[in-house]
């Protein structure tokens, strides 16, 4: 889905791109942004639904993890534009994020979550 959207942005051909004196890929169009916002809204609604569905409670956590990760990636990738930016910025964000997540998981282990 993500790649389709990027494609849509190019096809839309809206030249919103701003050049900072350097080569930069085209930004997504307003329409894409609205579409993404819609998806985000839907994912949020799904999350809340899952929360209320009794039958899903055993798999609540995995589902929530998947859904919120999807939201996370959408915002970071499109709104924050990381999908189009240089790999240095991606490293700058995902490196620290990975360490932070690893530490959260380690702390959960230390406080008895996975026993």
């Amino acid at each position: 889905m993500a790649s389709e959207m990027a494609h849509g942005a190019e096809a839309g051909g809206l030249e919103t791109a701003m050049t900072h004196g350097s080569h930069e890929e085209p930004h997504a169009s307003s329409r894409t942004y609205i579409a993404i916002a819609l998806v985000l809204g839907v994912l949020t609604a799904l999350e809340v639904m899952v929360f209320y569905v009794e039958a899903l409670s055993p798999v609540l956590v995995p589902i929530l993890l998947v859904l919120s990760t999807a939201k996370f990636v959408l915002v970071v990738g499109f709104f924050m534009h990381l999908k189009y930016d240089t790999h240095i910025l991606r490293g700058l964000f995902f490196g620290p994020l990975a360490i932070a997540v690893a530490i959260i998981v380690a702390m959960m282990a230390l406080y008895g979550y996975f026993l």
Partner: protein
Amino acid sequence: MERTSTGVPNEKMLMWAFIGSECMLFGSLIATYLAYRGRSIVGPYEEELLNIPFITVTTFVLLMSSLMMVLALSAVQRGDPRGSKLFLLLTALLGLVFLAGQVFEFNHFAHEGLGLGRNLFSGTFFLTTGFHGAHVTVGVIWLLTLWAMAMRGRLGPEKSLKVEVAGLYWHFVDVVWIVLFTVIYLMSGASGA
């Protein structure tokens, strides 16, 4: 615009590096929240307090403010002063609505007997969401400053980097809330240790 080795403007790189640092800040808060989940020894407990429908609404508000933010950026880049002003203001206003929701929620909890030092839930909850709220507050002030610049016609396309950097910050604050909303509210049922 200064020449840079990577082609990425300095300000933008600074913001991304800062966001990396913020990952550890909120990571520590979340780690603590999880470590202490379910360990309060006196009530009121989180299950009794957290109001999912209410917070879903404010979450949605914050998500929409993120949308306004990208629209604002794209308006500034396009050189569309009307759009710039409108969307910047909307972003800030939605942020304010979110904050109002938080103030309301905190007040409500306090009324239910959840003082700051009541139990472990209160401390971890108020500090984690409070830190996020403080970030939103800074963001709102920043956005309003930009809006004021736009109102005085001082925010043309050549200044779009300022808006882009503020936008990165704002979206990150939104992303943090995506995580907090899931971890604190939606996973409250799935108690840990």
